[in-house]
């Protein structure tokens, strides 16, 4: 049982949702946008978070969008991960998000919820980081489209009252050779030791990683070494992993040394997998 009460609102437009958020703030409330709501429900039960008003965005058609318009794919923040899997419009995202939680939970977990969540893995963001997608964010000033690499710094940097509406990805990125590898300590369900996502665009490998540090990241500092084709592959990977952007996690999932061991081998697997993908 969630030990506190909250009011529940289900607006039908983005404008209504952001207006509602502002109005609730003015009344002294602590509103939260609610998409799949799995973290709000489970963390709320444990008293890890508090809200006294939730704004469910699942009734907003823009947040439920899952369609190509011209050269771009628009995915709404309230689309569930299982819907993404079934539609399979973005195969790299399908592969990555289908490893999040389990099938039944993914009927509730949404794209926006996973990306904006408190649980730091946020693996659904990885395909968008390597694809250099854009995000549509709504605020009381209206909607704005911004590059995800500008907005996602460890987590999605939203101002109070801002709402993630959609993610926009160019078809060229969706069609690029790609791979997603999730390594767990054991079993086929659960959190990763690390997850690595890679795509090859114009001959250059782009990589994004979750589980290695306390936040998911696009491995911009590592990529020049990975793409230095003058060196042997093992050396490229060994040099690249010296440029991890933050402290490597050392916790019950894995020690930092083991994570680095897994990272090195997973990057080698990324190269091998992409070669096979390109041959196909």
């Amino acid at each position, binding site marked *: *049982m*969630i030990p*506190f*009460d*909250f*009011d*529940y609102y289900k607006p039908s437009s983005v404008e209504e949702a952001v207006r509602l958020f502002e109005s609730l703030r003015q009344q002294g409330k602590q509103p939260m946008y609610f998409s*799949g*709501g*799995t973290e709000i*429900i*489970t963390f*709320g*039960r444990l008293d890890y978070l508090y809200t006294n008003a*939730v704004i*469910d965005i*699942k009734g907003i058609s823009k947040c439920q969008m899952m369609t190509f318009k011209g050269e771009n794919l628009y995915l709404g923040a309230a689309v569930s991960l*299982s819907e993404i899997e079934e539609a399979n419009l973005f195969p790299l995202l399908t592969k990555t998000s*289908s490893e999040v*939680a*389990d*099938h*039944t*939970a993914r*009927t*509730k977990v949404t794209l926006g919820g996973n990306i904006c969540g408190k649980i730091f893995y946020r693996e659904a963001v990885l395909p968008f980081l390597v694809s250099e997608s854009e995000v549509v964010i709504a605020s009381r000033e209206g909607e704005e489209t911004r590059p995800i690499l500008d907005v996602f710094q460890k987590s999605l940097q939203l101002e109070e009252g801002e709402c993630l509406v959609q993610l926009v990805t160019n078809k060229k990125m969706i069609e690029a050779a790609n791979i997603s590898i999730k390594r767990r300590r054991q079993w*086929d*369900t659960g959190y990763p030791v690390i997850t690595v996502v890679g795509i090859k665009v114009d001959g250059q490998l782009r990589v994004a990683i979750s589980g290695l540090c306390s936040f998911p990241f696009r491995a911009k500092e590592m990529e020049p070494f990975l793409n230095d084709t003058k060196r042997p592959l093992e050396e490229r990977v060994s040099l690249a992993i010296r440029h991890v952007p933050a402290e490597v996690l050392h916790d019950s999932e894995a020690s930092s040394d083991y994570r680095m061991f897994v990272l090195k081998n997973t990057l080698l697997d990324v190269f091998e997998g992409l070669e096979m993908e390109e041959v196909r």
Partner: protein
Amino acid sequence: MTKVAVTLNVNGEESEVLIRPADTLLDVLRENLGLTGSKPGCLNGDCGACTVIVGKKPMKSCLMLAIEAVDQNVTTIEGLTDATVQRAFVEHFAFQCGYCTPGFIMNVHSLKENHPEADGETIKSWMDSNICRCTGYEEIEAAVKSVLYGGQEHHKR
């Protein structure tokens, strides 16, 4: 405590219930409607003991607010009457203590409705959502396979 009156459609019947918006579907099914077939297990979306069907999809009722189920059709284990999956679980003795059984059955029933010809990979992906603490997985697997492909085993692993 502020309560709101909402109408839920559960097992084909409409019921008006007075709930807190913070109440989970699992709590309302059990406490307000007396439908205790959906079991509280981890309450964290991990074990699947509370699985029901919302619309046509399996749903962990501990991960859903009851208020989110307004205007949707909810089916609980009490809403199945001699379903093929239920019979298969009995015939294959696919339970030990039985606590996880309603959740397994609801998930398999939904799988059968959505993918009557599910391949091995799909079956595995769906069934990873439920945990049997007695580890009676062999019998559960046999029951699941018996209701897909009309009992013909056809698996890609």
